[in-house]
């Protein structure tokens, strides 16, 4: 084996792929060869490092120097300066958004050093296509120990003791779920991994599959042993082609190493895995709809009970677990349930991966211990709100969740405290919103999504979400009626209590929680025909303030509909009937004279 003095990791998560990491990597490899460094320096294509807005990202080990936004030229410079001469390339370093200081290494970035990576322990560190790299970091050791030193009951009680709860949304105790499936009679049972990840904005499951596929394979084999199953399925959406490719490659490798198949590690245990690709429908993430989809039927949910653990895939006992849930299994086996249950809070053990997006300085993936406060997560780990704006709200749980406000910044992020506030953990999507966000519009956005994704099987969800959406649309269009809030509440409660599955049961949540915390905003839209955040186009009017206007005429020049008239050095005026409310004049005016109200 060749020995390398430095490893250069190129993030090839889907985010960095779209920002052009392939060109960066090619340039890097070419220049390394050109400088004759190819026997000393190894380039490793890795999974998502987590800082998705900074891509393409490169990390140089052993120092751990973190470079961001590295194009092909930047890559060549890193080779010539850093790798050849040992000089860090300052222009490609990350700058702390709050202190404006340059940060050299991974470990010095708040974004990373506040994290605790359990599920993401290998993601962004290993090459997901090379099974040896996984094995080098204790890969398949947990499966080896389980098969040779633990009984099936031991595995289940270890999981119960660890306190691990499902990361797919509901937070059901994983050990208990496995116990239920174990209790059922065999011989045929199934292990299913839910990688549908339908919450818009969440991408932790994709990143784990892309960055560390073997951890899911290994954990599913452990699950198979524990419940008595020989076959697993990973249900992934077709929109995740890279995840599908890397997972399939990893399955093939595991088979050829004898880590999947018959008689694993010389025991009598047999287990194999297949991928099932879904078309990408939110409802197919719901476990009974997912099972129907694997069976080749329409992806529609059915009533529970019977739960899948009793009657699941093809009517056989089945466990369905989320990708991130599986990614926690091997560390629990290796380091023990006591270790795991020391992380987190009393009722929410371990860590949680959040996909942070919206009005936030560091967007991306972060894994932190359960129980961190929302404030720490947003301001310490993720660098706060950009452009000096104020924090207004954060949506957790995606379209099924609710919002948290300024008063809730000190809430601890764990399953039960979020539910208490009318939100939920969900899969870990976290959308941060600043003062310029209209909460009615946000509620409309989520309802638009759930309404669209409703499978139509049950009436409350199919018709009810449509009616709610219509009301929200008319409120944001300035045509709200006095009775609308009451009607929304009544519909919401009906849909919540009578829908067949979690999609409908949770669809009204964004409306209920914005109504609870931002009712005044709804009232301003309905009664005063005013959007306080200045978002809802139909409710906006643009005016030029005479006192501030210097008559430069820039606004008139950028206006696409020639709605602004006036003479140089005089106050300009906007003609209402021509104005399309695009806002171009507001952006352009150097004196802040155009007001949007």
């Amino acid at each position: 084996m060749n020995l390398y003095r430095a490893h250069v990791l190129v993030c090839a998560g889907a985010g960095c792929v779209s920002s052009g990491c392939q060109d960066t990597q090619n340039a890097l490899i070419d220049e390394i060869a050109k400088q004759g460094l190819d026997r000393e320096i190894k380039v490793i294509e890795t999974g998502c490092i987590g800082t998705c807005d900074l891509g393409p990202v490169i990390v140089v080990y052993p120092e751990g120097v973190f470079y961001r936004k590295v194009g092909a030229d930047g890559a060549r410079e890193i080779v010539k300066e850093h790798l050849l001469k040992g000089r860090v390339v300052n222009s490609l370093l990350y700058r702390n958004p709050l202190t404006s200081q340059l940060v050299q290494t991974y470990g010095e970035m708040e974004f990373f050093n506040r994290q605790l990576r359990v599920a993401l322990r290998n993601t962004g560190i290993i090459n997901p296509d090379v099974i040896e790299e996984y094995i080098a970091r204790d890969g398949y050791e947990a499966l080896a120990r389980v098969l040779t030193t633990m009984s099936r009951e031991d595995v289940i009680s270890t999981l119960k003791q660890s306190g691990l709860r499902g990361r797919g949304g509901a937070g059901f105790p994983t050990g208990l779920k496995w116990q239920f499936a174990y209790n059922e009679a065999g011989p045929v049972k199934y292990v299913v991994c839910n990688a549908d990840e339908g919450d818009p904005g969440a991408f932790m499951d994709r990143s784990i599959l892309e960055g560390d596929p073997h951890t899911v394979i290994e954990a599913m084999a452990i699950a198979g042993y524990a419940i008595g199953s020989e076959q697993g399925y990973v249900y992934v959406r077709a929109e995740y082609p890279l995840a599908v490719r890397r997972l399939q490659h990893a399955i093939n490798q595991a088979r050829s190493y004898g880590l999947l198949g018959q008689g694993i590690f010389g025991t009598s245990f047999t287990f194999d895995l297949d991928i099932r690709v879904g078309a990408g429908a939110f409802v197919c993430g719901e476990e009974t709809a997912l099972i129907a989809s694997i069976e080749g039927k329409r992806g529609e949910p059915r009533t529970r009970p019977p739960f899948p653990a009793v009657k699941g895939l093809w009517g056989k006992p089945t466990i369905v677990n989320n990708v991130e849930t599986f990614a926690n299994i091997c560390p629990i086996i290796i380091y023990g349930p006591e270790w795991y249950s020391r992380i987190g809070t009393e009722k929410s053990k371990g860590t949680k991966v959040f996909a942070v997006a919206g009005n936030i300085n560091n967007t991306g993936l972060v894994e932190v211990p359960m129980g961190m406060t929302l404030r720490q997560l947003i301001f310490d780990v993720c660098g706060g709100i950009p452009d000096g704006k104020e924090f207004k709200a954060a949506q957790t749980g995606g379209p099924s969740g609710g919002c948290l406000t300024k008063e809730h910044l000190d809430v601890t992020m764990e399953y039960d405290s979020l539910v208490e506030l009318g939100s939920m953990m969900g899969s870990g999507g976290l959308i941060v919103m600043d003062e310029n966000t209209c909460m009615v519009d946000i509620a409309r956005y989520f309802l638009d999504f759930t309404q669209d994704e409703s499978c139509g099987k049950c009436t409350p969800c199919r018709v009810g979400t449509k009616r709610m959406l219509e009301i929200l649309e008319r409120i944001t269009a300035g045509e709200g009626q006095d009775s609308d809030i009451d009607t929304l509440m009544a519909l919401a409660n009906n849909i919540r209590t009578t829908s067949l599955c979690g999609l409908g049961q949770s669809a009204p949540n964004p409306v209920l929680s914005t109504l609870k915390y931002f009712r005044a905003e709804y009232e301003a839209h309905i009664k005063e025909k005013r959007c306080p955040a200045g978002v809802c186009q139909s409710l906006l009017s643009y005016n030029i303030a005479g006192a501030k206007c210097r008559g430069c005429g820039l606004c008139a020049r950028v206006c696409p509909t020639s709605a602004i008239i006036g003479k140089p050095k005089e106050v300009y005026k906007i003609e209402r009937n021509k104005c399309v409310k695009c806002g171009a004049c507001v952006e352009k005016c150097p004196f802040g004279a155009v007001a949007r109200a």
Partner: protein
Amino acid sequence: MKTVEDLRKLREEVQQMTKLRDGGAEVKIVVGMGTCGIAAGARETLNAFVQEIAVKSLSGVVVTQAGCVGLCDREPIVEVNAKDGRTIYARVTPEKARRIISEHVQGGRVIEDWVTRN
């Protein structure tokens, strides 16, 4: 792979593959790789350190590089950061590199003859 022993044997073999990325090193060896250092053979020195650490399977030791430290007449310059503090060696050849590993890094004895002070 047929047994747990096979897995553990393979892990031993491939451990080096990801070790560089682990962090938490106790000993850090920094080789000056300015133009002057490279001209004086710093790359061979650097690679000698890397080889020796791998051959001896030492853990907790990393080798990195730095730019010119301004002691160009005494290159290759090597800095060893360990529990005993910071030591700067001058004119380190691959041969000297191997002795620094065995005597200083492993043995804990600074090789005073090669130490330079600025």
